């Protein structure tokens, strides 16, 4: 199956919370930014050194000036400082990583709390510990996002929250749907980009959102993920089978009628799939029809398997 690139995370029609910091950090882009910063500083030192190199070559024929030696000494000092700084940074990095490993082990109760004999003074070791904890927290927050958490963000001094519902199918993260919710005086959805064919208002009414927002978000997530799954399957079916023509489908992707034509056989099979349960991405009814023959089956795992079955049906194997 080919990868389906997702639509953009934020919708142009809504604003407010969508401008807030995205916890869904794109690590690769931020990484690239600081790489450029490093290159800039390296270039500064290197260009200075190459200037000295040129200077030295042009002075070779003449007796050395004391000024030249002075400049060289200064360069050596600069390089020594730079080297020591880098060594210190690398060592600190190592220490933090080591601390982090022992903190991770403590969290999973694998080890007793032991003092890693650090030869730093206590203030430095406090800072190191704090830094290690910082990395741990960032990782845990990232994990909450990656496993499909709601990315809740408090807004307007606690009067509202922003949540996002992630959708996912066959290993690929798809669209994220966002909701802006008022918390005071009552819990009420104020803005969202959930498509209209998802029964958001019904789900809100049936939920206990005044006391527990998850009673709305969990069923909503179920609906959205089932829809995303059906949508992906509908998109892929054409790529898998060149002989498929979509006769009928709807936005909710709850109804699909496909026509399979087999040129050699000069026959066509009409396949209807009903997805009456909107919380599922599997059909509840599949129906083949060709040349007056009808075949009704109850359930199928994925749509592409239905296509294989269509082949079998045509070849009179079914």
């Amino acid at each position, binding site marked *: 199956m080919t990868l389906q690139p997702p639509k953009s995370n934020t919708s142009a029609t809504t604003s407010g919370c969508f401008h807030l910091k995205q916890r869904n950090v794109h690590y690769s882009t931020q990484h690239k930014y600081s790489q450029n910063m490093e290159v800039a500083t390296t270039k500064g030192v290197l260009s200075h050194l190459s200037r000295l190199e040129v200077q030295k070559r042009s002075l070779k024929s003449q007796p050395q000036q004391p000024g030249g030696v002075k400049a060289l000494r200064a360069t050596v000092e600069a390089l020594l400082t730079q080297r020591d700084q880098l060594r210190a940074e690398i060592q600190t990095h190592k220490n933090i990583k080591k601390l982090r490993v022992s903190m991770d082990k403590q969290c999973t109760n694998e080890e007793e709390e032991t003092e890693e004999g650090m030869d730093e003074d206590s203030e430095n070791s406090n800072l190191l510990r704090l830094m290690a904890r910082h990395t741990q927290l960032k990782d845990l927050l990232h994990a909450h996002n990656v496993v499909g958490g709601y990315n809740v963000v408090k807004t307007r001094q606690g009067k509202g929250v922003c949540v996002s519902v992630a959708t996912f199918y066959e290993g690929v993260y798809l669209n994220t749907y966002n909701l802006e919710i008022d918390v005071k005086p009552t819990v009420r959805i104020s803005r969202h980009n959930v498509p209209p064919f998802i029964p958001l208002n019904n789900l809100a009414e049936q939920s206990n959102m005044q006391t527990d927002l998850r009673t709305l978000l969990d069923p909503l997530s179920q609906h959205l*993920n089932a829809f995303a799954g059906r949508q992906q399957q509908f998109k892929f079916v054409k790529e898998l089978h060149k002989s498929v023509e979509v006769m009928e489908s709807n936005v909710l992707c709850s109804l699909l009628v496909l026509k399979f034509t087999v040129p050699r056989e000069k026959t066509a099979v009409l396949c209807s799939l009903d997805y009456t349960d909107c919380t599922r991405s599997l059909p509840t009814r599949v129906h083949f029809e060709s040349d007056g023959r009808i075949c009704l089956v109850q359930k199928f795992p994925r749509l592409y398997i239905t296509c294989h079955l269509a082949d079998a049906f045509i070849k009179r194997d079914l």
Partner: protein
Amino acid sequence: MTTGKMSNENTEEAAALQAQIEHLQAEVSALRRQQKDDQKDVTFHFRGQMQNAMLSLCGQRQGDEKVLSMLMEEVEELEEDLKLQTQMNGISLTGCTTKTLQSSGRKLVQQLCVSGHCSELLFQVEFQLSEVNEASGCVRTISELNVVIDAGEMQNFSSFLSGVEESRDLLLFFRTLRSFSDRCDDRRRTFQHFQEKYPAVVSLPAGCRSEVMHLSHPELPGCVLLVHWSVHVSREGGVSPKVELLTKIPERALQLFPSQAVGGAAEAFQSLLRILGAEAALEAVIMAVSLS
């Protein structure tokens, strides 16, 4: 005149310094490469307050006290945020280790190992997360998903887990886990509530987290009604509670009371369940058992 001698010494010194410069340049380049390697792991690529703290530790920044307090503030914000996410997501993540497998300009591949618990159910998931920058945006995918849960619940979950690993549906795993945990919590609350309200009749021999609640009248210890409340997880991730009433009544007692009321209790309970729902149906049965 000493100029000639001086210029010879200068030439020697200059040559020595030049050599030293070249040596140091090489060292610095090597160290920079190592640092770049260290920072490939996104977790340990420091920015903002972390960068300040790093520089302070390495002697480049003044004002250590301020650095500590500013970082402390940021860490406290992160702790608050984690509490909020934990509460809203209904899962508690206790550990997340990341290993960067590949990190180029456009692509980042990490191996993540996330562990935690959902209510009292422990889990550990391991997977590869790829982030690729394409023209249309950032595409995130999961591969090589491996899921392990508390040994006690494995039986219930085994077909679901194999399905989830096959389809790499990390998010479905967590949605289902949470749903399962919620239904187990419903059961625990209900069992505890009834045990407190009717202590003479209700007993939970295997604890409030078990699937079974015993009902019997204190004067008829041999006659027990068992409430078996199981939470089933389908391969697709559908979570459905199933409550059944089983009777453990000695033959002699049944002979004395041949009416359907006792013998057909299990079926009658299912009808009651459909009409009243689990809690009310159970309460009705308890009232009947307590003969009040």
